[in-house]
């Protein structure tokens, strides 16, 4: 009898992906930590001391959730997209496609590994941040919920990019041209309430605003938009990614001729 779930396959892919991260620990962990530390040094320590408090929160503390979010988004997308794109590029995808694994198992394994890595990096950055600025987490359960939800959602998004991409440039294009600008303009370094009314309204079309705002609320209890709206928007994006992935596997898009 063939079992109806191939957990060994999920484990094998997950382990393979984690081993890849350990082999490239420099790129995987150290570089995001260094770049985030630089943000803290420049914005937190150097500029932050000359900034007034925002909503009664010191500037250094204010930017922590946004910076963690920035890494979480870019790392989730980078890990997951590379994880599935590389076997396509190298041709080793044949083995995954010919194995007795379901699409769901393939997604769980790749996305699970990518999310694990970005969560670890997020936590490391949080720990690094606590060296520069005092941190309190007012709603730890929600903080962890947001962390997990964002990591998994954007790993799914990365998986989609990895299936779609036809070259290494395309792999970079979305994180570089879409995610990073959206994060910088999404209230990571300022409150959108500080913007003129027109630009504040425009900002509300930026999905990252809801992520950063919700995440910040779990730290400080202060937010640009209501926490419920933040959670709902994240769920909507998660759902959209799941629908897209279902379609990819149903049609065999870019995976099966």
């Amino acid at each position, binding site marked *: 009898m*063939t*079992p*109806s779930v*191939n957990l*060994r*396959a999920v*484990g*094998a*892919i997950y*382990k*393979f992906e984690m*081993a*890849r991260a350990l*082999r490239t620990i420099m790129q995987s962990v150290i570089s995001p930590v260094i770049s985030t530390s630089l943000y803290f040094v420049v914005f937190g320590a150097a500029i932050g001391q000359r900034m007034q408090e925002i909503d009664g929160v010191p500037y250094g503390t204010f930017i922590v959730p946004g910076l963690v979010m920035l890494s979480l988004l870019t790392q989730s997308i980078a890990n997951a997209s590379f994880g599935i794109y590389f076997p396509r590029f*190298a*041709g*080793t995808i*044949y*083995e*995954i*496609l*010919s*194995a*007795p*694994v*379901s699409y769901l198992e393939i997604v769980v394994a790749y996305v699970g590994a990518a999310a694990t890595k970005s969560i670890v990096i997020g936590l490391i950055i949080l720990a690094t941040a606590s060296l520069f600025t005092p941190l309190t987490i007012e709603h730890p359960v929600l903080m962890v919920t947001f962390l997990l939800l964002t990591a998994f959602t954007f790993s799914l998004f990365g998986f989609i990019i990895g299936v779609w991409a036809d070259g290494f440039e395309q792999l970079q294009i979305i994180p570089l041209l879409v995610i990073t600008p959206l994060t910088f303009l999404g209230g990571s370094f300022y409150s959108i309430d500080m913007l003129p009314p027109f630009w504040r309204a425009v900002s509300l079309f930026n999905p990252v605003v809801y992520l950063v705002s919700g995440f910040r609320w779990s730290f400080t209890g202060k937010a640009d938009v209501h926490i419920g709206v933040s959670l709902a928007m994240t769920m909507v994006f998660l759902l959209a990614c799941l629908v897209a992935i279902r379609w990819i596997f149903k049609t*065999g898009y870019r995976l*099966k*001729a």
Partner: protein
Amino acid sequence: MQSIISISGLSKTYDGGFQALKRVDLDVAPGEIFALLGPNGAGKTTLISIVCGLVKATGGSVQVGGHDIVADYRAARSLIGLVPQELSTDRFESVWDTVAFSRGLFGKPKNPAYVEKLLRDLSLWSKKDERILALSGGMKRRVLIAKALAHEPRVLFLDEPTAGVDVELRRDMWRLIRELRDTGVTVILTTHYIDEAEEMADRIGVIRAGELILVEEKTALIAKLGRKELILQLGAPLAEVPASLARYGLELRREGCELAYVYDGAREHADLAALLTELTAAGVAFKDIRTTQSSLEDIFVDLVKERA
């Protein structure tokens, strides 16, 4: 006996409109070595890719070990190992890790003893801790075979297994395939090396432009389609074939020193004896006799040309 692989009405038209397979029917018996022969682009790889789940068929069905490859893909794929044509490997993995990975991917529990035996059988044991990128092309081919066999499949697909490998590996591969067959594994290989099919296969299928134009036991194929020639070296040159022997359609060669008789390998050989008796009666003396048989290669070339 029930077929291990049963293909019926299998068709594939790619998105661009190219029809790679046209209603292919094929049954493969357990434990046989089946060679799929055909020129480049004939549809060999497409056929294999559909059975293994890499390409979606546009028509027809495939069963492996009685399991439909779509409806019951887990059971079907668990039985199959695939060695692809391209040397696609995880460059940065070690040999041991990549083979152990394959075993896990196919849902089998860890079995270091089995993996060790596999690596030893494939002369990979000394390389087990090396990264794949450090290996030669031939060694990479061995790694791919080890990966395909890691989950102890009942059916092994080898897509052009000896394309671009050296003589030693080719021999090793042939030996390994025979050993696998002896343990009951069914082997399906594609090749455009005729001698490989001739050497290895029990049965041969010839595929051309998406159609399986012929499936036959190798020996029967050679007997059926092979032409045989009887060549007589004459004691003295002849100016022309004696009129009494006209019905045999004999041919004089080498300035009358050789007499050749072309006959159908599958037909009764009774007329050979009659020919020899009549030759003697006609006073034609001969020093030596030999027969030649066309090889699979001649047959294949004839077949593919004929249908072109």
